[in-house]
């Protein structure tokens, strides 16, 4: 075993202990945040930089180091432009929905988004379908994280340690720090990890640009390969499209709509200190992730095409680990270790955030309904057990799954989209009905499942887009055929928002 592998493994173990230490510090500093189930799952209020980085770290995962550079390498610069477009768009809904959700939570004491829907629709079916969509979405993206993190450590050891052992070790690290620190501890750990992987991504980009001789040199060299197809947008009707228009457009629509309603975002709107923190976060979040994460990671992937073409790195490198392979060949093999730390930072934060969110949903949307007599402290205990079980199932799926990281993340986004119909009925389309909402959600989840597992989506569309094409007409038709909620009922529910609004023009429910 080489010295680098020994040091790398030691650093991984130390890193795990450091995260546990942060969670311990958080629990000691703010004992109320782990006193009972409510604070264990939603903390005692997060704002400012913790809200910003924890949202980023929990939403943008190992994908930024493992999936993003690979996709850019395979499909060109157009992908960076598309990702930037949807990232910049998706948070506009956060500025609209976030403050409204925060007010409704303060007023009615919601613990989950499903809790809010059950109260608004006076129907638990919407809540249960949402939990299914959310847990499937969280599960799919978490499977991808375990795969990527395990792969990363295994690659560092030259495949000496199998992927499943590496990811099992990480399972225990996450379980310990999430159980100790609860939501608040996870948010603080996420912040530290978000800063770490952003620094690593930018470090990688600066090295790649330095070695390439600058942006212009790199772009022009890549442009010279294959007639510029790695730089240019694929024209409509091109004979050999990388991204044909329907794939690119449907990818952006699904990522935007699914991103709007990702469980990581929605829970953090509930957990925020106040509405101003949410609005500030909505401005800085997309700027941070577009410049700091996807563009930097993507450009390293694109640069690899130039480096391989110019013979600076070998052509037979492992494309699935292109970020670390490129930097290791360009500088020092120690980049293998640095990138592993970045992958862990990105992946652990996502797994912890996702699994805490899934456990929250299961505890408050299922267990608390079946056994309402359980007190707050009892729910915290249930939460820890559910966290351990759900995360173990997801880890096991990661060992058996053969799906690519990017494909799994896209699948999770498609599942998150099921929340679009209840939100639409609450805030945007008063003619929407409970039955219509349920029909839309089932249609969407059915369409996504059908085109993911059984048939290939037609016309180059993504599975999520097909799900939306099935769910949306169902939602509209069934809603028009059934009786909506009266305006009086709406006004009674939205009274806190009507009385609390600051602007006359604000539209409330």
């Amino acid at each position: 075993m080489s010295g680098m592998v020994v040091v790398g493994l030691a650093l991984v173990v130390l890193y795990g202990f450091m995260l546990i230490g942060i969670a311990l510090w958080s629990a000691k500093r703010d004992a109320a945040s782990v006193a009972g189930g409510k604070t264990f799952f939603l903390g005692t209020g997060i704002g400012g930089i913790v809200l910003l980085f924890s949202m980023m770290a929990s939403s943008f995962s190992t994908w930024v180091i493992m999936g993003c550079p690979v996709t850019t390498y395979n499909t060109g610069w157009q992908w960076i432009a598309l990702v930037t477009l949807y990232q910049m768009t998706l948070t506009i809904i956060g500025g609209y929905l976030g403050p409204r959700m925060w007010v409704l939570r303060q007023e009615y004491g919601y613990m989950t988004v499903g809790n809010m829907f059950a109260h608004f629709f006076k129907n638990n079916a919407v809540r249960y379908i949402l939990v299914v969509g959310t847990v499937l979405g969280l599960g799919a993206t978490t499977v991808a994280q375990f795969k990527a993190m395990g792969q990363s450590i295994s690659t560092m050891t030259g495949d000496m340690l199998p992927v499943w052992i590496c990811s099992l070790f990480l399972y225990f690290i996450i379980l310990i720090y999430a159980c100790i620190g609860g939501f608040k501890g996870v948010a603080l750990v996420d912040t530290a990890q978000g800063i770490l992987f952003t620094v690593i991504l930018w470090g990688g980009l600066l090295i790649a640009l330095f070695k390439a001789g600058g942006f212009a040199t790199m772009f022009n060299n890549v442009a010279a390969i294959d007639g510029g197809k790695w730089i240019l947008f694929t024209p409509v009707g091109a004979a050999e499209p990388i991204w044909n228009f329907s794939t690119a457009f449907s990818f952006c629509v699904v990522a935007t709509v699914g991103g709007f309603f990702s469980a990581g975002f929605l829970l953090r709107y509930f957990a925020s200190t106040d509405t101003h923190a949410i609005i500030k976060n909505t401005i800085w979040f997309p700027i941070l992730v577009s410049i700091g994460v996807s563009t930097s990671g993507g450009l390293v992937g694109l640069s690899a095409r130039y480096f391989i073409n110019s013979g600076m790195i070998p052509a037979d490198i492992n494309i699935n680990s292109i970020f670390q392979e490129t930097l290791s060949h360009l500088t020092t093999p120690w980049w293998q270790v640095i990138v592993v730390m970045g992958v862990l930072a990105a992946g652990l934060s996502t797994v912890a955030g996702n699994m805490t969110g899934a456990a929250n949903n299961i505890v408050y949307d299922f267990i608390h309904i079946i056994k309402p007599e359980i007190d707050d402290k009892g729910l915290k205990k249930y939460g820890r057990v559910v966290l351990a079980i759900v995360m173990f199932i997801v880890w096991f799926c990661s060992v058996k799954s053969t799906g690519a990281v990017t494909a799994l993340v896209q699948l999770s986004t498609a599942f998150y989209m099921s929340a679009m119909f209840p939100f639409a009925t609450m805030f945007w389309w008063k003619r929407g009905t409970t039955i219509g909402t349920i029909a839309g959600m089932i249609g969407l989840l059915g369409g996504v499942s059908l085109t993911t597992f059984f048939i290939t989506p037609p016309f180059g569309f993504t599975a999520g887009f097909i799900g939306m094409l099935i769910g949306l007409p169902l939602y509209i038709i069934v809603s028009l055929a059934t009786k909506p909620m009266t305006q009086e009922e709406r006004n009674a529910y939205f009274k806190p928002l009507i009385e609390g609004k600051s602007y006359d023009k604000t539209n409330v429910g």
Partner: protein
Amino acid sequence: MSKLTNNGVVVIHIIIWILAFAPSFIPALNTLEPHILGLPFVVFWEIFVWALQVAMLFITAKYVWDPFDNYKKPSEREGGDQA
């Protein structure tokens, strides 16, 4: 600006999306030449679209998104119902 509404923001973003996808169907935008500061034109086009979105974020936060400052929590007023 103060007349801008949430619906107006959505319309502006739809226009921004059309601009972002424009190089797919307008060949003149999807070119390696001319170079500006050594970079292909299409790169600058997408940076321009990104800058528009950043500007829209700041404008929307200032004039459209309501922070509901007049809301008082149940603990800050008498009574208040809990679900």
